[in-house]
């Protein structure tokens, strides 16, 4: 049974807007978003392109800041943090999985997974142990010395997930993680994310186009024209 979602939300957006450019060419990507995400939730973000879901994900990933409004992450006002402070926040609490995997080429799976630990200043032994544990979790322990070119797409995405969870983050942000995979591989990845959400207590935020993938989530947030169009709660009683 899924754990109950209670307590303060880990993420809160209040009246968040985002404007790109200025003057007559200015484009308002977000027109005032209010959103709460509970700790331990599995959220799928859906919507047509240009609806503001990518912009929202960039803000939630602390890669970008809102033009106006508040973004509270674990009670902290992220919109007031500078570039380096947000980098430290990402390092500490967030993990990223991308559609294009974004692994370092010519670099072994283990070295890719160890990368976030390097920035955390962990020593070699810890990096090795945690890196191997993360690879084990995604079922690629035996592939640790393979470079991305030697791995299939599904395997590459699993290495990317191992890299995202190696620091035991609070939140995992996945931007169309199955967009480049066939349906069988996609389901494997979704099962892996579901498992991480249930058993490791990681809050998962995922952008997807495919209703089949969104079906794995507990909450589905629909975006349209820079606004939240609806929130679907799929928790079965």
């Amino acid at each position, binding site marked *: 049974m899924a754990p109950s979602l209670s307590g303060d939300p880990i993420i809160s957006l209040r009246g968040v807007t985002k404007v790109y450019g200025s003057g007559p060419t200015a484009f308002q990507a977000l027109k005032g978003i209010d959103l709460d995400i509970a700790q331990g939730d599995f959220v799928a973000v859906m919507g047509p392109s240009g609806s503001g879901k990518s912009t929202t994900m*960039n803000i939630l*990933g602390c*890669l*970008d800041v809102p033009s106006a409004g508040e973004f509270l992450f674990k009670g902290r006002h992220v919109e007031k943090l500078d*570039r*380096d402070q947000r*980098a*430290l*926040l*990402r*390092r*500490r609490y*967030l993990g*990223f999985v*991308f559609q294009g995997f*974004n*692994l*370092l*080429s*010519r*670099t072994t799976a283990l*070295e890719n997974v160890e*990368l*976030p630990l*390097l*920035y*955390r*200043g962990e020593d070699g032994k810890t990096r090795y142990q945690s890196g191997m544990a993360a690879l084990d979790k995604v079922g690629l322990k035996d592939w640790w010395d393979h470079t991305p070119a030697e791995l299939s797409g599904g395997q590459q995405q699993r290495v990317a997930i191992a*890299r995202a969870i190696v620091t035991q983050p609070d939140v995992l942000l996945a931007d169309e993680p199955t967009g480049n995979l066939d349906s069988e591989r996609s389901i494997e990845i979704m099962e892996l994310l579901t498992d991480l959400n249930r058993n490791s207590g990681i809050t998962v935020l995922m952008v997807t186009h495919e209703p089949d993938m969104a079906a794995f989530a507990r909450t589905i947030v629909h975006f349209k024209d820079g606004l939240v169009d609806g929130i679907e709660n799929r928790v079965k009683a």
Partner: protein
Amino acid sequence: MLGTTVILALRAINRHKLRSFLTTLGIIIGVAAVVTMVTLGNGATAAVREQISSLGANVLQLRPGQGFGRGGGGPRPPDFKPQDLTAIENQLTGVRAVAPMVQSSGTAIYEGSNWSTTVYGTTAAYFEVQSWKADTGRLFMPEEEEAGKPVCIIGNTVRTNLFQGNDPVGKRMRIKGVSCQVIGTLATRGQGGFGDQDDVVVMPIKFVQRRFTGDRDISQILVAVDDAYDTGTVQASLEELMRERRKVKPGAEDNFNVFDTKQISDTLTGTTTILTQIVAAVAAISLLVGGIGIMNIMLVSVTERTREIGIRLAIGAVAREVLMQFLVEAIVLSCLGGLIGLFLALIASVAIAPLMQVPFIFDIKVNLIAFLFSAAIGVVFGYFPARRAAALNPIDALRHE
């Protein structure tokens, strides 16, 4: 933090071995060129110094006139007389040996071969002053000197060109149309500051005066100072003696000059040092070009690795860490290039020094400075690309194709 960036830099270099090597090529060549030039230059300086000291340490050269080749009007100052030589031998203290010299040039002929060379007329004391030994045969006998007999001792260049592989001792050759017997050959001295020192035929001075110069004048006197005496003091008393003998009025300029070989040595080594510095400066420009090469490739590398930088930033690298990574990469590359350059310079110097007939002298200071300089180039030319990498926006960098 620094340890992490060094690991990251080494991994990045390891991923692109060929490119890294090409990047450092400029530094490798620059460092190798500078260090080789300076090492060979130092060797050349040492060789010049050594050859001059082989002219005889503490030797004073007495010549008529002032300095080298001071032409102009006025009567030519007179040469020295045999009495001057006797006076120096008898009246000057602190003298180990005194040798008179006259010089003439001419062609030496033996069987079919002929060779244009220099004839020195002197006494056996000349070899003592110059610390020059016979290789085969013998030096002059006192009676040969006294009578001015037609005997000669030949240098190695003359021996090679006239006699090829044959033993010349005892053979008769012709010099300036006069027949003379070879009684000895001289040990090789090689190229000196004054040209080929082995291209010489040495004969008794009385013979050269009688047959070639036509008078009893002596054009140069070499005075070897006893080690126990100060060269400066002996030089001063020699000058005083000669002013008196040549009747130079008080206050008038000397009509002769005394040259200390040490002075020549200093002048020549000074010249070689300046030449070395000029060549090294030219080579240093190639180091600068090498630095620009590093900057160039690092800039390309930043563009090419934009997505990688985006990944690092998304994972939580702060701008300073990305800057440090690229900076350290540039520094590691230039330091590696410096080390390889030093190694090549070592090989090149060891190989070339014997060809140039100069000793190989390993100067740790030169190597250290060249290495630090290459590291500094890494810092200077790596900073700009590194700053560009650190300034990238993670979202744009991640989207970069």
